[in-house]
């Protein structure tokens, strides 16, 4: 009886797990089918050209791919140190009375609807960025990162708003991961005479795979964010390094143009953008799995500068 019960349980759980696979495969198949006209018409050119002209029927995704990756990486660069700082403070340093409210407040950030972030971006962030741009000296504006007219809307605003949106995700997961570090690890570090900083470093090293997972979760969130980004990025398919220039993202162009897309080729091109986004998300996720796997295999800690902590972690 017990065996049969196990079998039933196994089948039921297996079916649920397979459902996820089926959904992913189903999305992929559907995206390819619904974008077939565009795939046939443009082929590889779709990935490599930047013209997006619905009137002439010329479609290329490159500018959107660029904008999506640029804004997400920018958000990651801004958000990761802050999010990890929050996580470390809450789990290691914060007085117990502050711990609850701080956790609650960071997680509250995740509960704010993205349209509200977008409005906040238009009315608060953009004027700030604009005055920053206006105050930028000409010599700095000559650099490729800071060229462009002082409108406020552009890549920098998008990166900042994405960073705020990503922080709660990364910091919550990182905090949970740090919580799982055994007390013995920290105590061992202290016993060996480690300073607080070194003990925390040891704990972070212990939790490194989980922390990378937390960062990648934030990255995935940034890749797919639509509404807040489209409200502040300026929505111009541009390929430029400049933080002050208007750019565009894949999710934004789909959300913007899908409802009014008449004509089959146009619609298929938009769905192919969805396919490109899907593929890029898959690549990013697979990449992060590989990274986590590779880190999990590292046995010798790379903390030569802190022998005590290293000893504790090993």
């Amino acid at each position: 009886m017990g065996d049969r019960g196990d079998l039933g349980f196994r089948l039921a759980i297996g079916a649920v797990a397979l459902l996820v696979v089926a959904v992913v495969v189903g999305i992929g198949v559907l995206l390819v089918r619904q974008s077939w006209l565009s795939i046939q018409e443009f082929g590889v050119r779709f990935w490599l050209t930047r013209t997006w002209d619905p009137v002439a029927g010329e479609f290329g995704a490159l500018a959107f791919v660029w904008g999506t990756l640029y804004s997400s990486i920018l958000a990651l660069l801004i958000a990761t140190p802050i999010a990890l700082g929050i996580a470390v403070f809450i789990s290691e340093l914060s007085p117990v009375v502050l711990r609850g409210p701080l956790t609650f407040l960071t997680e509250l950030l995740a509960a704010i609807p993205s349209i509200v972030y977008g409005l906040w971006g238009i009315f608060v962030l953009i004027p700030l960025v604009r005055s920053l741009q206006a105050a930028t000296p000409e010599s700095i504006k000559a650099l490729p990162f800071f060229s462009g007219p002082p409108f406020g809307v552009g890549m920098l605003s998008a990166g900042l708003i994405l960073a705020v949106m990503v922080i709660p995700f990364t910091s919550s997961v990182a905090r949970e991961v740090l919580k799982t570090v055994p007390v013995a690890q920290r105590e061992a570090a202290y016993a060996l005479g480690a300073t607080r900083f070194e003990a925390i470093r040891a704990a972070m090293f212990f939790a490194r795979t989980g922390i990378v997972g937390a960062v990648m979760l934030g990255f995935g969130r940034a890749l797919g964010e639509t509404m807040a980004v489209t409200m502040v990025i300026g929505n111009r398919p541009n390929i430029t390094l400049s933080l002050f220039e208007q750019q565009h993202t894949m999710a934004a162009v789909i959300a913007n143009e899908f409802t009014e897309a008449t004509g089959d080729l146009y619609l298929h091109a938009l769905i192919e953008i969805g396919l490109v986004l899907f593929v890029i998300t898959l690549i990013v996720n697979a990449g992060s799995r590989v990274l986590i796997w590779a880190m999990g295999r590292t046995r010798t800690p790379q903390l030569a500068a802190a022998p005590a902590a290293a000893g504790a972690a090993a």
Partner: protein
Amino acid sequence: MMIRRYGLAACLMAAVMVAACGGNQPQTSEQGAAAPGSPVQINGAGATFPNPIYSKWFAEYHKRHPEIQINYQPIGSGGGIRQLTSRTVFFGASDMPMKDDDLKAAPGPILHFPTVLGAVVPIYNLMGVTDLKFTGPLLADIYLGKVKKWNDPAIAKANPGVKLPSTDIAVVHRSEGSGTTFIFVDYLAKVSPEFKDKVGVNASVNWPTGIGGKGNEGVAGLVSQTPGALGYVELIYALQNNIAFGAVQNAAGDFVKASPDAVTKAAAGANIPEDFRVSITNASGAGAYPISSFTYLLLYQEPTDKVQGKAMVDFVRWAAADGQKFATELGYAPLPQNVAAQELKSLEKIKVS
């Protein structure tokens, strides 16, 4: 024991799913067989621009005819046309007439019925400058990126006596596909061959310059915050939010500030073809506002469901007459008499028996 319990759970789940999937399908056929007088549900989808007045109309009409319930999803003109041609909804709505290709691709002939009129107005943010005037070619050149500064001679010429600053023009357009953009570029393409050539006419275009704002509120937000900005929004949005807008020169040479009255005049002076698929931008009548347009309901000439078809015909007849009195208070321009009369005639083409 265990397996039986899981099996039961699985069966239950399957049953729920089947019920959920199958539940919706028989609805239409039941309604098709329904006798007049029993409840009629009609679903439609399309343009967002007329959504406020359509909601008002459907509610008012429901009060007068409690058996008729019309549901409308404002998903955009393109989406409305797609859902109509795939017969997912009974009627569609669009801010622009359907293209010949789309009409050909539809499973049956589709008729256009103008309901009200809207307009697009230029808004700007210039310290201390009010009541600016624009000519059509000037707007086209600004949106082509050819006129870059506010003190450009072309702007000065249209606005004698106005002190214009030397700041850059921050051009703002809609980022998403929209009927508003369609009306605006349709006008620009009529007054500027270069614009027609380089940009063309569509609900979303490849803009040579400018920042994209999402929705009327996005464009208005960017313009109100960016010194030296110029954008375009729907008249109804500018009126409801007290946003100052500029006058535009019509084909007769008058500078006209948009108002429901000036928009109705643009339609009254236009030559309306039998199928109503016409652009009334660049109108020439005295006092006619040049960036005006119809918004349409789209109906199949041979509806699959005669009961719903009959109800819709009655509704459009009411909307073109009594319903028009709700237009102005909501900021829309009512149809001119001649168009409403022509519409009643066109309604007879729908085969409801």
